[in-house]
């Protein structure tokens, strides 16, 4: 095992999909990488998504490039993390008169972007999904899928660790020591030992999502971000086999994702001042119940058990933008000062791997490497005996206990194990850094 007391090539800030995949990508390119996450892996935006692995259909009309990328990336995710993906398929349903006005435009968008689809007879759709509204007017089937975010994030963290990255949870960046226009040292609050630590790296990747503006400002850089909260309500019953989308231009309350034994109804857009201070909004909850029950009337009857939020960033930044924008919703910034920091903001969970690939290309270029990304075909490690055998005997024993397909609660236990794995590799990373004995 290498020693990690010295300087890293890259320090990644943020343990969401982009930060983790950047850590894995850069490690596979041969860089010595540390990832710093202020809370738990996936505790920011990525672990609070709705579980929707986009086929691209949702973007086919308004953003064809994003649609094509979603189509490619969702296929990649299902191939590299098959243990975390449920191939449910999806329906777009017209349930009100105005919805049908969008049908022709939607079908054209799907044809133009090459997203497989099928016009389904409403009667057939009702046989397949009996909880759908009886007011069905038109139905289009698309290859949407459901993804278990924590399982994917845990798998990426595990893979990155096995490949040599060090992944630290509860390690909050609180400042930077800057000298000669570059970050010389990162100040980190170790929430476990309640002490202040320092990390040194040639290059810093700021992948902290809606918090990227705060992190950048600590280094004297400017990324102005407007956090917007999207609310989701959890219905304690799985009301459909497929993901149900409302057939209309993307709006609030138009998706219902079957997630294990629940249904997730989302989402909304509410401007918030501070991503750490989001309060429930009764009007939004009522809107989600109303819109969701237009597609699946049982939603109103059953009601919801809880509400949760995911924070997305709206962007505006000064300075030069680096790299290609894979979609309109993410940006990579190569800061003028500090010179050795790259920030990335935005993106979707579905395209997180691709965003990280672009970030890693920028980092490689900055560090003088021409090695290409390997994550596209890299099968992520799982919470399995085999993948955990070389890391730690306790983890291996846990995997044997918890991820046992003969157990009633196999799926839930296995998902929980990914959290345990992330916590465990964080502890091991702390040891490697000499933060604990």
């Amino acid at each position, binding site marked *: 095992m290498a020693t990690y007391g010295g300087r890293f090539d890259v320090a990644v800030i943020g343990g969401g999909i982009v930060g983790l995949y950047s850590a894995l990508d850069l490690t596979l390119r041969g860089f010595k990488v540390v990832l710093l996450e202020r809370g738990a892996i996936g505790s920011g935006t990525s672990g609070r998504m709705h579980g929707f692995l986009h086929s691209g259909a*949702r*973007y086919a009309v*308004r*953003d064809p490039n*994003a649609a094509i990328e979603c189509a490619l990336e969702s296929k990649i995710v299902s191939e590299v993390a098959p243990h975390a993906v449920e191939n449910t398929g999806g329906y777009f349903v017209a349930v009100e008169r105005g919805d049908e006005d969008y049908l022709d435009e939607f079908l054209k968008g799907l044809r133009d972007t090459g997203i497989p689809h099928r016009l389904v007879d409403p009667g057939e759709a009702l046989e397949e999904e009996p909880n759908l509204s009886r007011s069905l007017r038109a139905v289009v089937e698309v290859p949407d899928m459901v993804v278990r975010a924590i399982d994917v994030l845990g798998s990426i963290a595990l893979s990155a660790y096995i490949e040599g990255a060090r992944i630290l949870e509860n390690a909050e960046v609180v400042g930077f020591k800057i000298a000669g226009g570059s970050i010389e040292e990162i100040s980190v609050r170790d929430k476990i030992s309640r002490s202040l630590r320092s990390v040194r790296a040639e290059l810093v990747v700021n992948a902290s999502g809606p918090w990227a503006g705060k992190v950048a400002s600590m280094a004297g850089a400017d990324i*102005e971000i*407007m956090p*917007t*909260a*999207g609310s989701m309500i959890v219905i304690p019953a799985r009301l459909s086999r497929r993901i149900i989308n409302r057939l209309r*231009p*993307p*709006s*609030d*309350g138009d998706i219902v994702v079957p997630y294990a034994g629940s249904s997730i109804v989302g*989402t*909304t*857009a*509410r*401007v*918030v*001042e501070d991503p750490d201070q989001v309060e429930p*909004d009764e*009007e*939004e909850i009522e*809107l989600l119940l109303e*819109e969701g029950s237009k597609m699946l009337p049982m939603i109103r009857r059953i009601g919801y058990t809880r509400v949760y939020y995911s924070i*997305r960033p*709206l*962007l*505006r930044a000064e300075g030069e933008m680096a790299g290609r924008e894979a*979609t*309109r*919703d993410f940006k990579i910034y190569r800061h003028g000062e500090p010179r050795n920091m790259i920030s990335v903001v935005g993106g*979707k969970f579905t395209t997180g791997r691709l965003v990280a690939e672009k970030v890693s290309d920028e980092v490689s270029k900055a560090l003088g490497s021409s090695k290409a990304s390997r994550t596209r075909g890299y099968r992520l490690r799982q919470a399995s005996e085999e993948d955990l055998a070389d890391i730690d005997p306790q983890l291996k024993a846990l995997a044997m206990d918890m991820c046992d397909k003969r157990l009633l609660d196999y799926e839930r236990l296995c998902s929980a194990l990914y959290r345990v794995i992330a916590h465990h590799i964080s502890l091991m990373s702390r040891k490697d850094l000499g933060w604990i004995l």
Partner: protein
Amino acid sequence: MRRISGEILSQHRSEDLLGLLKTPSRFARCIPGVISYENLDDKSIRVRARLDISDAGIPEMSSITSTLTITLASIEGNMARYRISGRAAGSSYEADLTIRIEPLDNGSMVTWQADISLGKLLEILDRFVGVEEIAKRIASLAVKGVEKCLKT
């Protein structure tokens, strides 16, 4: 407080347009994006509408739902004044809308002016997405909706 304004040519007669503006519920029925409305009294309605925010760059969302109250404050001669208050994206807004209709040989000229007051969060949002542009687009769509309504 900010003022935005615009003018749009209508092929309809000024008295037809003014007739529509006298009754908020008739007016509301014509505005694209209105999901539902309820009459509060003969001059006020509460409307739930979907506002087009596709320029905001939120890929998951090209429109958001807003609840607003529209009150006819006055209608005199060729001019109607409305008071609008509502909430969108978690923040409040208010507007005083004045619509003036001038008869032309082959229709009418609709001139509108809105004094808008945005809540704190929408003011911040405005730096990112151009709330003024969104308001102008909504106004233009509303007049087109009225045109379509009068045709049928």
